[in-house]
């Protein structure tokens, strides 16, 4: 019995992944679930630059970002059988896993450091120098689309979305951080996400 459900065409489009690329990633995950280390290495080569960049931005510490990536890929190795294509693409599955691992560590850090603030964008760690060579070709175009879409969002929606994604803060904490009512923050995130979805689809 097949353990994996295939993603729909609309779902594929939303992350800008060509069907062949998506199919290839699904096959890699299936092979990983069967203990295939070559497939694991291939998925790592394919996705680690994106995931590490995200972890760096969230943790603002190279060593902790490596730990997050380790946690995430070990989880992917152990739990590849839980991937369900009807719930999201392989890349969004991997992003979600690594993001959750980063949030776990951020919350530990926040407890330990009593909410010591760190800059979300370290020039050293998150420079705008664009290493496109580190990305698979199919993701290069997608990255440009995401950047373009984000610039089209109203600033307050973009800020709310970025805080929600990268900071590990809950909506309540975001509301406190930017001194804005919770309902307003939730509405900004919802509208921003809806608009982002629309922009990414129209960019295809």
């Amino acid at each position: 019995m097949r353990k994996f459900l295939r993603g729909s065409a609309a779902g594929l489009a939303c992350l800008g992944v060509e069907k062949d690329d998506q199919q290839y990633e699904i096959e890699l995950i299936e092979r990983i679930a069967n203990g295939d280390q070559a497939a694991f290495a291939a998925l790592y080569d394919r996705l680690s630059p994106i995931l590490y960049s995200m972890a760096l931005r969230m943790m603002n510490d190279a060593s902790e970002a490596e730990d997050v990536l380790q946690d995430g890929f070990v989880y992917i190795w152990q739990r590849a059988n839980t991937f369900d294509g009807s719930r999201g693409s392989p890349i969004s599955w991997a992003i979600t896993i690594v993001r959750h691992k980063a949030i776990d560590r951020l919350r530990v850090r926040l407890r330990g450091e009593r909410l010591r603030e760190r800059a979300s964008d370290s020039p050293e760690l998150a420079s705008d120098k664009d290493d496109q060579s580190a990305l698979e070709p199919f993701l290069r175009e997608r990255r440009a689309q995401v950047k373009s879409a984000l610039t089209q969002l109203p600033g307050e929606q973009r800020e709310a979305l970025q805080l929600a994604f990268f900071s590990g803060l809950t909506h309540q904490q975001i509301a406190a951080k930017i001194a804005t009512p919770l309902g307003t923050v939730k509405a900004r995130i919802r509208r921003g996400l809806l608009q982002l979805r629309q922009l990414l689809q129209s960019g295809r």
Partner: protein
Amino acid sequence: MIDETRQQIATDYVLGELPPAEAIAFEKELATDEELREFTRELKDGFASLALEKPPVRPDPGLFSRILRRANAGGRPRSKILSFLPWALAACFALAALIAGLDDFHGKQEVAELNRRDVIAHLQIASLRAQIDAYTNSSAIVVWNAARQRGLIRLQDLPRAEAGHDYQLWIIDPTKKAPVSAGVVPPEKLNAGEVEFQPAHPITTAAKFALSIEKAGGSMEPQGQIILVGD
């Protein structure tokens, strides 16, 4: 057409903001409502795409071999059926639900749902085994929630410690110089009792859990014999 209320619920679901009971209810809706499922999937993929905003960065070339070592140490990937050992799950479901904050936990179906959406993935479950012959029949299961920095231990067939001594739980965190105390086990909980614990210091990585015999009231660092260990 998905109205604004459901759009907000879907958004909260994607961002992990829904309380567990509401998330489970929403997932039931997803199972039967194709339009909502597709909408939610697109939101999820759109949200994940934020990770692409910054330039990609290749990690240290040696990182993958470290990941592979850790992955291999944990054995082959889990099969669908053997994702968790049933006996361990039976012992841990209620504990996991409790420390995950699932006040309305009802049973295996909910756990299966939670497992699908990776709620339980945040929990670490460790089986502690005896290190010395005198405790061969003793065991313990630890459920650790890193995000909440809280855990529960269920002990099985642990004899009463000799007078003037207590059992003390430790968390081995590779980022710390010494094991971190997670507290002393009350004597009345030694046989099939469940004890909630909270470490003395924040834990970054709970690599192992250990139970030792210490002087009554516990020690700052382990000094007595380690009797159970597991990861």
